[in-house]
């Protein structure tokens, strides 16, 4: 929160100076972009004549009209309540993006024909690979965190070497190293296990820090209270410390999962049939790259939105539980 002052001033967007400045700046921007070649230029024909020959005058006057429209839009939104402001701006931006995609002259028939396969094969693979990896990464992270907090030099060295290595290398390189490197040692590994292993190790290293912070957030008194009752280390960890660190651990873990969902697209390079791989191969065959990439992009986005909603609920759950 920015904790706004209680004094009510006119919103910034209703100040004449600001409106004038908005019109002027957006006029320059729109003039620079030069939209006279589009349908907007056609609409301006009565004023500027032939759009392609209207020159600087045409561009500036188109820019002025669009700038005024833009400023009016901002002023009008300024009158709404917060929730409506958010909704309207979201819808406007969404419409802009969709019209941007639409301007590629996409073949929707082609998208429709591939969509089902992208979901059943691509989304399914993406989801299960990410889900398995996040679970394994959490387990790795618990051990990593305990080792990093340990007073045992061997454990600490192992854990810090591990986190340093896997946080220091690009994920793409780790994927190659595991998929191409392990066979050198005599272990031929399939693409899917290799991908899961790479994601697990990489995210396990990041999540080690999350778990470490979570464990450290529990005051010493909790350890002492448990210890004073004769409870041993492992049980204290499982029953006293970890359950309490969950509200600290879960939110960033959710973020890691969302990030992993997107990073799992990298394992397409070793031929795992996840969403990105399907999008590339399906599009490449018929030179319809844009269709598939945009579809995959939207699917990733929708998945992330869904997961963020789930995460908000989990966060709320943990907040109410811990009073």
């Amino acid at each position, binding site marked *: 929160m920015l904790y706004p002052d209680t004094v009510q001033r006119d919103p910034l967007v209703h100040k004449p100076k600001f409106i004038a400045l908005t019109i002027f700046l957006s006029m320059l921007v729109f003039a620079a972009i030069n939209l006279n070649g589009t349908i907007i230029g056609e609409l301006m024909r009565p004023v500027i004549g032939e759009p392609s020959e209207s020159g600087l005058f045409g561009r500036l006057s188109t820019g002025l009209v669009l700038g005024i429209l833009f400023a009016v839009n901002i002023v009008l939104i300024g009158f709404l309540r917060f929730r409506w402001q958010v909704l309207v701006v979201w819808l406007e931006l969404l419409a802009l993006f969709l019209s941007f995609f639409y301007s590629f002259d996409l073949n929707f028939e082609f998208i429709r024909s591939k969509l089902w396969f992208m979901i059943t094969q691509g989304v399914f693979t993406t989801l299960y690979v990410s889900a398995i990896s996040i679970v394994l990464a959490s387990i790795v992270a618990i051990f990593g965190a305990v080792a990093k907090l340990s007073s045992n030099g061997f454990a600490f060295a192992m854990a810090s070497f591990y986190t340093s290595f896997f946080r220091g290398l690009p994920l793409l390189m780790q994927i190659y190293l595991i998929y191409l490197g392990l066979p050198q040692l005599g272990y031929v590994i399939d693409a899917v296990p290799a991908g899961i292993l790479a994601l697990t190790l990489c995210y396990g290293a990041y999540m080690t820090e999350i778990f470490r912070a979570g464990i450290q957030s529990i005051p010493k*008194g*909790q350890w*002492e*209270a*448990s*210890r*004073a*009752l*004769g*409870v*041993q280390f492992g*049980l204290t960890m499982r*029953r*006293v410390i970890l*359950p*309490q660190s969950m509200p600290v651990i879960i939110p960033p873990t959710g973020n890691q999962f969302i990030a992993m969902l997107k990073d799992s697209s990298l394992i397409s390079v070793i031929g795992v049939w996840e969403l990105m791989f399907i999008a590339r191969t399906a599009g490449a065959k018929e030179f319809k790259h844009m269709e598939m990439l945009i579809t995959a992009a939207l699917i990733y986005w929708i998945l992330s939105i869904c997961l963020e909603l789930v995460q908000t609920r989990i966060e709320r759950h943990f907040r109410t*539980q*811990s*009073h």
Partner: protein
Amino acid sequence: MSDPIITMRGVNKWYGKYHALRDVNFSVKQGERIVICGPSGSGKSTLIRTLNWLEAHQEGTITIDDIELHPKMRKIDQVRMEVGMVFQHFNLFPHMSVLENLMFAPIWVRGLSEPEAREIAMTYLERVHIPEHAEKYPGQLSGGQQQRVAIARALCMNPKVMLFDEPTSALDPEMVSEVLDVMTELARDGMTMVCVTHEMGFAKAVADRVIFMDAGEIIEEADPHNFFDAPQNERTKAFLGQILQH
């Protein structure tokens, strides 16, 4: 009175270069009630925390119920099972209900069944006068109630000794007496107690012996009557003068 259940002989402790306990000797017999007082930083909390080895000492011997505390010992958990501890800041487990707080160690450490542990827990909740809050979480209780739950939690392990580390210093004034009442009742029932506190009324009423510490040393040790009415040491007199003034 039987053999001492707690003995400290020539105990020294350092935090780095800071000498926290200097050559401490004392012992507690079964059923004795000891009150330890002294200015802040005098080492009284450190002393009580070495008794169940939440803090290690470096020199001398500490023996609890015939088991000596030393770094290589395997049986520290067995010692801690027999030594209940109540902390200044309660240290209840906030994610467990009151009942779960009380049943946790009896089930997992003593190996009791759930119904057994529940019965014991309810018995002690009644002894600290809050059976009606059994299902609540610590965060829903007042400080005084939380501290009474913490006392009950320690009692559920059926300890031979109870240690109290400034149990009333984190409480609002109006809640101090409810905790002290519970502690007084416990003392009447014959519990062996070592209590770090500044509640001199409690010390007068309950203690068999009062120990005054300063700068890591035991300065004076006497029964309450002599301690309050005829303190021997100048530092004791100055301390008592300060806290009894108000």
